[in-house]
């Protein structure tokens, strides 16, 4: 076998092995998107009930809550960036980071300092490599977040928000979150949202008929609100984590699908080249044989 042909065959073999891997990753991601979507759907009733409860309580209590009031002077903002733990997901993590960079620029233009909180190893590596300061980071669950993770993140962010930004370097006046919204299997968009101070948005779906009922509060409205608002933040963070996880799987599936397609394409063109190389080898062998036979024939004809 000629050297050229051997090289082509080796490359084809290695691309075939890669293709098997990317194909497997594609299939795994495809099945995980569905699970992730189901988890988003499973968390929706809770989020809706909670939103309804918050708007009901907020309507009936005039108490100002620290989580809903804006600081008189803004000094610092926190940005929570949600990315993946692993790569192989196309531009998923980098587009979230890019969105965050844009947000940080606008925040700085408003004269705010920025504290960064990160989710996912990709963002952590990005920030470490560029020696940018990180306030805190959480890793290891980007593709399968649970409510406990959302709670840990929210606890830290809420306490940072409640701390006074003027005196405490960890204190912030605003909280922004950058996550990837899962629109559909093919569309995922990196978004930034302001989480704190809170603006209560109406629950999705039909509003309950009639006016909101005159609730009796147990123990009282202020305390109910105190307990309710942190849960509301947690549920928003949880939703952002779940949407990002679904987007991550979708992005990975798409990236792995195109990797598989590319491998197919490469195998096809390399096979053509290998065939041509083999044919060239055969042709050369034949012409060598024919040439040799000719030479022999003319040599023996000359001697006679």
């Amino acid at each position, binding site marked *: 076998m000629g050297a050229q042909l051997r090289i082509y065959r080796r490359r084809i073999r290695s691309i075939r092995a890669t293709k098997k891997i990317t194909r497997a990753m594609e299939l795994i991601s495809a099945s995980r998107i569905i699970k992730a979507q189901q*988890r988003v759907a*499973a*968390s929706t*009733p*809770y*989020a809706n*009930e*909670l939103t*309804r*409860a918050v708007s*009901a*309580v907020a309507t009936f209590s005039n108490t100002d809550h620290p989580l809903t009031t804006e600081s008189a002077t803004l000094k610092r903002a926190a940005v929570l960036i949600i990315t993946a733990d692993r790569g192989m997901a196309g531009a998923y993590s980098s587009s979230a980071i890019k969105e965050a960079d844009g947000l940080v620029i606008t925040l700085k233009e408003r004269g705010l300092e920025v504290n960064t909180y990160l989710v996912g190893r990709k963002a952590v590596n990005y920030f470490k490599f560029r020696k940018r300061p990180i306030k805190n980071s959480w890793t290891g669950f980007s593709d399968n977040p*649970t*409510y406990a993770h*959302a709670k840990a993140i929210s606890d830290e962010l809420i306490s940072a928000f409640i701390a006074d930004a003027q005196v405490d370097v960890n204190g912030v006046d605003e909280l922004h979150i950058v996550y990837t919204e899962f629109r559909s299997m093919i569309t995922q968009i990196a978004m930034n949202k302001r989480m704190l101070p809170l603006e209560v948005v109406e629950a999705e779906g039909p509003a*309950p008929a009639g006016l*909101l*009922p*005159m*609730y*009796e*509060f*147990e*123990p009282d409205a202020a*305390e*109910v609100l105190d*307990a*309710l608002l942190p*849960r509301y933040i*947690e*549920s928003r963070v*949880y939703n952002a984590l779940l949407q990002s996880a679904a987007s991550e799987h979708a992005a990975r599936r798409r990236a792995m699908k195109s990797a598989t397609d590319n491998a197919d394409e490469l195998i096809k063109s390399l096979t053509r080249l290998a065939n041509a190389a083999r044919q060239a080898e055969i042709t050369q062998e034949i012409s060598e044989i024919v040439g040799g036979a000719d030479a022999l024939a003319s040599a023996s004809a000359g001697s006679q």
Partner: protein
Amino acid sequence: MSEKTLTVEFVTPEKRVFSGKAISLFARTLEGDLGILVDHAPLFGVLVDGKVRIKGLDASLQEFEVSGGFISVAYNRISVLGESATQ
């Protein structure tokens, strides 16, 4: 028995625990144990860790262990929001 029943939605962030009709519901709030029957006044309470019991239409009792959460009652519709719940 009256025609009216309670509509109960019991949800946690991870899943919907219970959804359906019931005769009565018992839970423990910061103020103490609470039983809810049909036509209860609108109420919003903070739950403490403990049991939530739902009495179904066939008088069967379902018990859930809940850790933290809220209960809201209005117009015979009860929503229980638990942080986590196990049956």
